[in-house]
């Protein structure tokens, strides 16, 4: 086993998992209200009515913690020229042919795209969600806006859910990744292979 490099502090990990757990509960209760095939997910929160009551509070919790997380990781997620080169070779990345890829920093282009998907979709979910939030806010908005908001909310949620499906799979697919968020550390070999520019910065090698 090679040496370990610190990737996430305890605070960053806690922040991430609060967002993740809130997302998980909000996504499942949201899907329950979206298609009858998913209605059974509402039982996770204590039935349809509880799912309806809790969903917006859980969503708001997710937004608040996401703002903190986005602020922490913002500066690592600026898209640079190397990211475009990396994206052009996405087919090779998916086939595990990583030789000669541009050297990613802390995040590769795929991770950065997910970051920006979240930065855009989560505020859209917040605003459209407030518009349809019964019984607190919805009565103050006209019905045409409620109609627009439910569609926008569903679309933004769909994009976010797809993004998170990819995010979770990528963590499983790229071995040695999950410990970054559970233990906070990654192996030097992992860092050198997947995030070489960040590895150099961290180790000075």
């Amino acid at each position, binding site marked *: 086993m090679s040496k370990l490099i610190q990737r996430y502090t305890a605070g960053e990990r806690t922040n991430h998992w609060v967002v993740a757990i809130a997302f998980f509960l909000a996504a499942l209760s949201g899907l329950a209200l*979206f*298609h009858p095939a998913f209605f059974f997910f509402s039982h996770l929160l204590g039935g349809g*009515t509880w799912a309806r009551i809790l969903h917006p509070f859980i969503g708001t919790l997710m937004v608040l913690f996401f703002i903190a997380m986005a602020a922490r990781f913002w500066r690592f997620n600026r898209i640079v020229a190397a990211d475009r080169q990396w994206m052009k070779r996405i087919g090779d990345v998916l086939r595990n042919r990583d030789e000669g890829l541009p050297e990613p920093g802390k995040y590769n282009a795929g991770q950065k795209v997910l970051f920006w998907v979240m930065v855009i979709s989560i505020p859209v979910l917040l605003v459209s969600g407030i518009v349809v939030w*019964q*019984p607190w806010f919805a009565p103050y908005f006209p019905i045409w806006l409620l*109609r627009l908001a439910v569609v926008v909310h569903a679309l933004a949620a769909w994009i976010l859910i*797809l993004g998170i499906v990819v995010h979770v799979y990528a963590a499983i*697919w790229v*071995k040695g990744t999950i410990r970054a968020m559970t233990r906070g550390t990654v192996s030097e070999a992992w860092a050198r292979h997947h995030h070489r520019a960040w590895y150099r910065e961290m180790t000075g090698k």
Partner: protein
Amino acid sequence: MALQSLDITARSATTRPMPSARHTTEVAKLIDISKCIGCKACQVACMEWNDLRDEIGTNVGVYDNPRDLSDQSWTLMRFSEVEVQAGRLEWLIRKDGCMHCADPGCLKACPAPGAIVQYSNGIVDFHEENCIGCGYCLTGCPFNIPRFSKKDSKAYKCTLCSDRVAVGLEPACIKTCPTGALVFGSKEDMILHAEGRITDLKERGFSNAALYDPQGVGGTHVMYVLQHGDQPELYANLPKDPSISPLVSLWKGIAKPLMSLGVGLAVFAGFFHFVTVGPKEVEEEEERS
């Protein structure tokens, strides 16, 4: 709230076949606005039969009382003063309430299984014990009818007295109407009755008299005879050509199955990528070096 359970045509958030061993005749309430005197007996009968008591409101200078529909007021006389011909004031009084659409937007939008049902007789009924209080029915309804209770956050509206109709009685409002402006029967008979009334109105100079049975929602099980059938908006903004909002149709139509399929496919794509291409592992030599 209903006695029927064998003759269901549609049930919210349900993808299985409906219990439909029994089939009942399609019914309709016909509201002949030309005969309405605005006595509000129908409002009282509705309160009485359904045992509802709205809060006592305040006079806002119009005859509408209460001011709007609510969880306690499922029908309401709406008074409009119009001059279709200059100098000739007309007082149009429309009994507002659920139209019991053949294609109900509320039911289409509802995510709670069995919170909204449509019987084969055409009545669209809310089952509040299954209602989760999300308010989606408000977005589905083209007539702005469902009302939220502040007490329990559930949606309420006219049941067309489904409990009375199920046992062969007419709705309470019909029973009480003193002028015959409200009639109830099979939808077929009500259309015939309306035709007679329209012929009569045309002879009396209302050349645009017409039946209001809007096809944009598949027809309704509450219909109006309008003296000015070409201008339904005169009657407290009765929509001319109501239909379920295209946004709601998109959301609960094509988007619902396609987006669900998309999420499912994404999960399976990941799984099959893993079992075919395999994980991305940092090679042993690389680990050691």
